[in-house]
């Protein structure tokens, strides 16, 4: 993959509600942001875990759905035109000199920024790995939890496991190029877009794909190359020949690379002060669910407050020679101009 270079004032790691709102607070103080998230969409936990559930404790909003809050935040930060980098995981942060940090992702994106804001919540949303015995032996060659290049499945025999949108979308996507697809799911009901489900049933009926109602219990093969798997079904075990396994069991949050950035941690949370929400490294801040300090509450409201105070100190790094004056969005013509409402 080609290396891509970006230079900006602030890199925000995590596009959850707190990462998003910090674009606003930083933007009011004239700082440009790039936002990176491993998910393919903004919103963090609100978008991934509870888009349809109401939140009752956002000040001034008696009730707002997770997805609505994300939409509103996106609208609120739009005037500052942040650049998003989705489906990318931040791997490394290195100090370049006394001013700049270098941030690298698993997609070969390299950022140079004066300030890093870690709004990583509970860590990266990563695909769940089913606890099948010895699955890790096959992970480098034959087991795929996400797909970057579907061409590698051309003329392959695939076993796709799961009954949600990801599993079914990939069945449809790979049906043309794979030699054979066996869809494995524990029941004959699927939880996906009705149209997708209809198409899957017709693929099964027309025998374009095989369907087995059961659960994978064993993988077999030599030297990390999958040859077949065993499926536990109500009619006993079934052996399925396949050279690739694609399990889709949803996502789970794992701390991930954040642990390796040389920051002081307490039980997997980044320790910060409560004035600037800065870590032990000057210029690296941690806000939202990922940080800890005496009295910390993992609430969106608290993350928003942290974003506001963090921005004050970030300004001092980005504009060391400028003076910061406190202003209200209601009355400051300067701020209103930035928001496009003057």
């Amino acid at each position, binding site marked *: 993959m080609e290396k891509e270079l970006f230079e900006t004032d602030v890199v925000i790691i995590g596009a959850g509600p707190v990462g998003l709102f910090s674009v606003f607070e930083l933007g009011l103080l004239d700082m440009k942001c790039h936002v990176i998230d491993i998910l393919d969409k903004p919103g963090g936990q609100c978008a991934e875990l509870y888009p349809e559930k109401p939140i009752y404790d956002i000040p001034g909003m008696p009730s707002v759905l997770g997805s609505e809050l994300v939409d509103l935040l996106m609208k609120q930060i739009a005037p500052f035109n942040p650049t998003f980098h989705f489906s990318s995981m931040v791997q490394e942060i290195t100090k370049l000199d006394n001013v700049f940090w270098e941030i690298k992702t698993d997609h070969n994106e390299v950022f140079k920024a004066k300030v890093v804001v870690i709004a990583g919540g509970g860590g990266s949303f990563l695909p769940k790995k089913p606890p099948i015995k010895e699955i890790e032996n096959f992970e480098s060659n034959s087991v795929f939890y996400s797909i970057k290049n579907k061409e590698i499945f051309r003329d392959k025999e695939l076993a796709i496991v799961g009954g949600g949108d990801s599993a079914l979308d990939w069945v449809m996507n790979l049906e043309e190029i794979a030699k054979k697809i066996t869809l494995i799911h524990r029941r004959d009901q699927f939880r996906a877009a009705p149209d997708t489900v209809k198409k899957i049933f017709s693929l099964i009926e027309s025998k374009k794909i095989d369907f087995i109602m059961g659960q994978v219990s064993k993988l077999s093969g030599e030297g990390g190359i999958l040859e077949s798997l065993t499926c536990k079904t109500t009619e006993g075990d079934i052996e399925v020949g396949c050279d690739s396994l694609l399990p889709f*069991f*949803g996502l*789970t949050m794992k701390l991930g690379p954040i642990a390796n950035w040389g920051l002081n941690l307490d039980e997997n949370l980044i320790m910060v002060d409560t004035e600037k929400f800065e870590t032990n490294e000057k210029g690296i801040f941690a806000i939202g669910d990922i940080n800890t300090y005496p009295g910390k509450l993992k609430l969106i409201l608290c993350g928003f407050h942290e974003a506001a105070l963090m921005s004050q100190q970030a300004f001092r790094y980005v504009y060391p020679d400028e003076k910061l004056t406190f202003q209200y969005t209601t009355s400051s013509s300067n701020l209103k101009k930035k928001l496009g409402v003057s």
Partner: protein
Amino acid sequence: MTKINFIEFSGAEHSIDVDNGNTVMEAAIQNNVPGIDADCGGACACATCHVYVDKDWVGKIGEAEEMEKDMLDFAFDVEENSRLSCQIKVSEELDGLTVRLPEKQF
């Protein structure tokens, strides 16, 4: 108070007095029973609070709702007696309920 028994995959047992109205998942988390992750805090959105209900109790705790059945698709090694523990509300009728925990919640 209602007694709920948790049996870890290793066989270790925990017998816990739970306030009625709490969920089985909450009982486990509040009492540090290992083996239940509950990533989503009980929103029926993560399937990391999967338990196996003791066969004798399957009939008594009632059926899972559609949403829970759908979410069970994201658990591993799901059996007839699989439930998501955040969706089981503790009440007097469940006194003595035994649930077994899977080897791993992912």
